[in-house]
């Protein structure tokens, strides 16, 4: 419909072209009977058109959102309007919906097809698979379609929306036990349980700002919880790494590819357990003794390197649980933060009451003390980790810091100090003349 030279340039090249895909959908919509579409037929064309205009102008053409949503929910919909609606009328309203993805994003095709049909019917037929938080993003529809969409989603697809706004956001997790030998915890189960248990927090904003939960099955961090979630739950273990000495030998002999073959695209030479594993262990806690690999588990910090490199020989321990870290976030406002290790170890077994109890204490404090638009991580920074530990009732441990404080500015409490803080200047002056 529109002249989109720059976009057509993006149809070239080997990587899947979103423009080519969009054009196909545009064509498909042209062929669809009108009664199979509740919003404009050429919504895809107009989106591409506006995108080209944005390239030309070097500026986006979307306006601020405004409050749209579905009844009783405070999130799940992002309002969006074009600032050039006269040129691209079918994207004049172009709201997105966030649909809560299933934990770790396995699908049956019947579900996906039903979703496609529904979204082509009541929306643009365009998706993000998936949004950065993890949701299925339905890209673009009008305000009128929001309620019907929600109705169809819940009634027909048995499927709810995800989060947006100042509330719990859609939790997400790595593939974990479903297909990963490293998973120390049941990531999907924990993710599902927290999601459903906290539906109210997810749908009805009651927080100072957004709150994200992500769950990694092990310290490899495949869902990036440490960087992207206010609460990061990361599987770990506190007993010993399991060793199959026979397999260690097989690696040494070159019978098994190191690191599951992850480096096989290049000739790195013969596998050298000393150089590639023992010397790279960050704690230096491994040695070969009498042809056996010995790990001093007391000194291991569970970085996963040796296990990643020799998955057939080494496995995480069996006394597993989670390390819990709080406060990761993007830069706005105080600068980006990585999550802070707060609970070095906690068991993680259904129904996860211990985790929920902790989380609720954290929320209580944040709701009480957090300023508007202050992420948990910023609150922790502002008040200090010691204060955070105090309110959530976790005792201080050296594990929580890279190093102890370097400044001597300790905020003592009155009860720490014998004799209390009340002193009389007159007593003092008896000893010390002015």
């Amino acid at each position, binding site marked *: 419909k529109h002249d989109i030279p720059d976009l057509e340039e993006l149809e070239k090249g080997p990587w899947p072209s979103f423009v080519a895909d969009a054009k196909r959908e545009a064509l498909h919509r042209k062929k669809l009977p009108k009664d199979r579409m509740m919003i404009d037929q050429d919504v895809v064309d107009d989106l591409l058109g506006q995108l080209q205009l944005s390239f030309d102008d070097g500026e986006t053409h979307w306006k601020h959102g405004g409050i749209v949503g579905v009844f009783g929910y405070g999130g799940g919909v992002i309002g969006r309007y074009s600032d050039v609606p006269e040129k691209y009328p079918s994207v004049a309203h172009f709201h997105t919906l966030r649909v809560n993805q299933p934990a770790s994003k396995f699908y049956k095709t019947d579900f996906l097809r039903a979703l496609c049909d529904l979204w082509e019917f009541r929306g643009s037929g365009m998706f993000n698979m998936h949004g950065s938080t993890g949701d299925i993003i339905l890209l673009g529809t009008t305000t009128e379609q929001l309620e019907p969409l929600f109705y169809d989603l819940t009634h027909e697809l048995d499927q709810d929306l995800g989060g947006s706004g100042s509330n719990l956001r859609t939790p997400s997790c790595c593939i974990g036990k479903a*297909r990963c030998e490293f998973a120390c915890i049941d990531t999907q189960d924990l993710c599902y349980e927290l999601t459903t248990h906290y539906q109210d927090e997810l749908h009805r904003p009651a927080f100072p700002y957004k709150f994200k939960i992500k769950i990694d099955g092990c*310290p490899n961090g495949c869902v990036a919880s440490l960087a992207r979630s206010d609460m990061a739950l990361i599987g770990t273990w506190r007993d010993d790494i399991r060793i199959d000495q026979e397999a260690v030998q097989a690696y040494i002999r070159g019978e098994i590819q190191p690191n599951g073959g992850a480096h096989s695209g290049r000739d790195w030479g013969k596998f050298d357990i000393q150089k590639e594993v023992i010397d790279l262990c960050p704690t230096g806690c491994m040695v070969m003794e009498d042809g056996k690999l010995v790990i001093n588990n007391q000194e291991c910090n569970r970085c996963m390197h040796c296990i990643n490199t020799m998955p057939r020989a080494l496995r995480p321990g069996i006394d597993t649980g989670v390390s819990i870290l709080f406060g990761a976030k993007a830069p706005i406002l*105080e600068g*980006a933060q990585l999550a802070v290790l707060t609970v070095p170890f906690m068991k993680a077994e259904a129904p996860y009451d211990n985790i929920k109890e902790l989380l609720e204490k954290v929320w209580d404090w944040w709701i009480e003390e957090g300023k508007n638009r202050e992420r948990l991580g910023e609150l922790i920074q502002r008040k200090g980790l010691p204060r955070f530990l105090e309110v959530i009732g976790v005792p201080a441990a050296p594990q929580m810091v890279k190093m102890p404080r370097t400044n001597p500015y300790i905020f003592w409490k009155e009860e720490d100090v014998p004799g209390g803080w009340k002193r009389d200047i007159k007593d003092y002056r008896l000893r010390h003349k002015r």
Partner: protein
Amino acid sequence: KPTENRITDIGPRHFWEFFPPVIQKNYGKWLYHDILEPGIMVHVSETGDKVFTVRCGGSRFMTAENIREICDIADKYCDGYVRFTTRNNIEFMVTSYEKVEALKKDLLSRKYISGSYKFPIGGTGAGVTNIVHTQGYIHCHTPATDASSMVKAIMDELMDYFTGMTLPAHVRISVACCLNMCGAVHCSDIALLGIHRKPPIVDDNIDSICEIPLAITACPVGAISPGKTEDGRKTVKIKEERCMFCGNCYTMCPALPIADKLGDGVAVLAGGKISNRISEPKFSKVIVPWLPNNFPRFPEVVATVKKIIEVYAAEARKYERIGDWAERIGWEKFFEKCELPFTEHLIDDYRLAYDTYRTSTQFKF
């Protein structure tokens, strides 16, 4: 009446119903995996079962037609199951190696008429996998650049790294179109970040468009203060020399637009990571403060990314992530080797800046 008979708070579908039988049966029982070739893995269970996974790149912007095509493939080879990874790749799983071959052939044969692959296979092991990215001009109101187009431009150039495993370690690239950083840009091996460079313009009608006190408190550096227009209405003043172009005021108040064709562009960050493997997770560092928004293919951005990866590929040690490599050789050598200029913009002057300053004589000439 859509608000009648409401069903709410039902959450997502339960994951178990979407697991293929082999996954259900072997849940928690996996013993090890092997990457048979780029993009193709086998996981072996203690039951003896195996699952073969074929991972395909995709642009995460995706239409119904595209998803239907994925479903067709999944129906044909995978009993109707498919999955998406945390980096927006598509994974098809089968239970025998024979099926892998057919699936693979099928996937690679699917191309758009313009020639691009629909389902390139790769993204595993020591290579470049799919780029995590954000909305950009496709849907957002605050971008300083576009995301989907930049990703396409970069991945076209890095295709060999996607379909190969020739790098010293994982290289994770992310794109975010503004400082809100909706991708995990702050901890990526390489990150591309849209940035503004001009202070916001104040709309004459700000008093009718938004809450002025909110706009004022939005600014983390206190650059916004109350003011009066010539005709006596309430407005705000911007201390321009204080502004650090974060865009938070615009997020809070539409009357303070900040985007600008000449001002906006792309910062390049490098050396972040998320995994706890060997070294601790760490932030990406800004290594190029600004490159132009040269739509649609961002040649300057693409060239910079490629240069870094090539030097890294040539110089780093096995298992060494970009950030670990840069730290080992020293950032001064990183700039030298990657032929990047170092400017004052790259020296931190925000809140925790002091900890990034060198407080020793240990440096290389």
